[in-house]
């Protein structure tokens, strides 16, 4: 073991970290990363079965479920890993916000984290669209309608953007190449900043990193086991092939807070809710620089936003489906 450790420079992993880095609330980012690795590995296999053409997508997912036991299981693991990644990243964000982990000199760390969160939402949206079922068709219809409000930022959703390829293959390309590459680049920057700025600013480092690494690897294995068990027990469903012009489904849970805003304020709410959340997250390092009135206000606003978001998710989960684009409700 020692010759291998020497040749692979394992001693570089002995750099100091705070002992509390092995606490669960400091492991949430690592658990998100573990879920992302599971997503990447299962996603690579799924690309061998999925047909991204507009007319073949739904049938290829159906084929996976009904004819390929391993692909069906890996798809279920993929879906559960996506939920785990989003749940852990939100918890990670809340924990870092509460610890004020965005204060100087850690602003870059915070902003790369916020951008990673946005990319994860992008991946979740494009992943949903790829199913080409009723929920997917409605999600894309909302994005297309919202893109008209978004000006040049919405160009991607217009047919003229790249006339040679229809929207679904473009979303597929975003899901398997553009967004993962951006995620990888940002993740590298995020980890590099953690390495150089430290896991936590508040406590003097007292333990070697490899003891922390050992524990987060252990937690990652337990997470993978849990996700696989969930996939075996509650496999992901598939709705019928999507029909345009209807609004009868609700989005999956990570998007329910946006759905709730849309219920209350229409299309404006759909665009405004993410803008408010990400706008707030973006300015936090400016408004909470030092202790004082602004710091207290920022913390209070963060708590209110978090509670509102959870409340909105619960409300949207129980509220009946609504039509936002003036489409048929199917009744």
């Amino acid at each position, binding site marked *: 073991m020692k010759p291998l450790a020497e040749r692979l420079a394992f001693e570089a992993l002995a750099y100091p970290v705070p002992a509390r880095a092995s606490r669960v609330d400091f492991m949430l980012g690592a658990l998100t990363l573990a879920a992302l690795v599971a997503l990447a590995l299962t996603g690579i296999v799924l690309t061998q079965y999925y047909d991204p053409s507009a007319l073949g997508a739904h049938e290829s997912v159906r084929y996976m479920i009904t004819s390929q036991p391993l692909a069906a299981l890996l798809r279920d693991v993929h879906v559960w890993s996506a939920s785990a990644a989003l749940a852990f990243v939100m918890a990670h964000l809340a924990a870092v916000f509460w610890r004020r982990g965005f204060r100087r000199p850690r602003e870059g760390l915070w902003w790369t984290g916020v951008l990673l969160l946005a990319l994860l939402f992008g991946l979740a949206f494009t992943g949903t669209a790829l199913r080409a079922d009723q929920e997917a068709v409605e999600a894309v219809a909302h994005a297309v309608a919202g893109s008209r409000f978004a000006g040049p930022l919405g160009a991607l959703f217009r047919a003229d953007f790249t006339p040679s390829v229809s*929207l679904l293959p473009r979303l597929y390309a975003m899901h398997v190449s553009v967004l993962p590459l951006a995620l990888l680049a940002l993740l590298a920057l995020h980890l590099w900043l953690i390495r150089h700025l430290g896991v936590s600013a508040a406590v003097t480092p007292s333990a070697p990193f490899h003891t922390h690494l050992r524990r987060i690897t252990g937690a990652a294995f337990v997470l993978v086991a849990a996700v696989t068990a969930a996939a075996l027990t509650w496999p992901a469903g598939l709705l019928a092939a999507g029909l345009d012009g209807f609004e009868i489904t609700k989005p999956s849970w990570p998007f329910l807070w946006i759905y709730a805003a849309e219920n209350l304020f229409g299309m404006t709410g759909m665009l405004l809710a993410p803008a408010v959340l990400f706008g707030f997250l973006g300015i936090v390092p400016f408004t909470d620089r030092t202790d004082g009135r602004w710091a207290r206000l920022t913390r209070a606003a963060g708590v209110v936003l978090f509670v509102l978001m959870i409340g909105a998710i619960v409300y949207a989960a129980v509220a009946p489906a609504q039509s936002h684009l003036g489409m048929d409700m199917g009744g």
Partner: protein
Amino acid sequence: MHISMVGLLAAQTLLLAASTLPHPQGVLELRSRTFAAGDSLLVRGRNFEQDDAITLVLVGAAGRVEIGTLPTDSAGAVKGTVLVPATVRVGPYRLVAEAVDGDEVASLDVVVSAAAVAGANTVSTPTGAHDPAAHASMSMPGAPSDEPLALDRARSGAVTAAAILFIVVCLATGAVLLRRPRAHSLEEST
């Protein structure tokens, strides 16, 4: 003078904002999403601007092909037949409905295919095999559903056993790694 200039600018801004307000999101319906060049296409639609018109354009790798303009009624609905030019090349297209000002108000993925294939897509494949044409037939306007399909999931004892073994191995490895190691100071490790 200054105030009137400001007022004028404000009015212009409002007019500009009003002129860029998006149109309602329309819905296009076709009997089939696969058709052949030279076919007559029955197009239905709703949710468009009332008492107006939409222009239908096929947008694809070969470029934009305008295939006709249909008037909308007082309810914002359209119904009419347009002719797909015989010169349109086979391939995937997006059928785009444009408002009179050129804004895209609805779109649909379609396929222009050779005549014989276009007719074949109306037959669904009951086997559930991977056949894009089957999806094309299912995509025709009908009753949508928010209920998961009752699919006969593919099962394999080997895959399930392997998954359970994988879970056990992951849990065991995780438990070993999560065990708190003996006190390990920084000095010891360096």
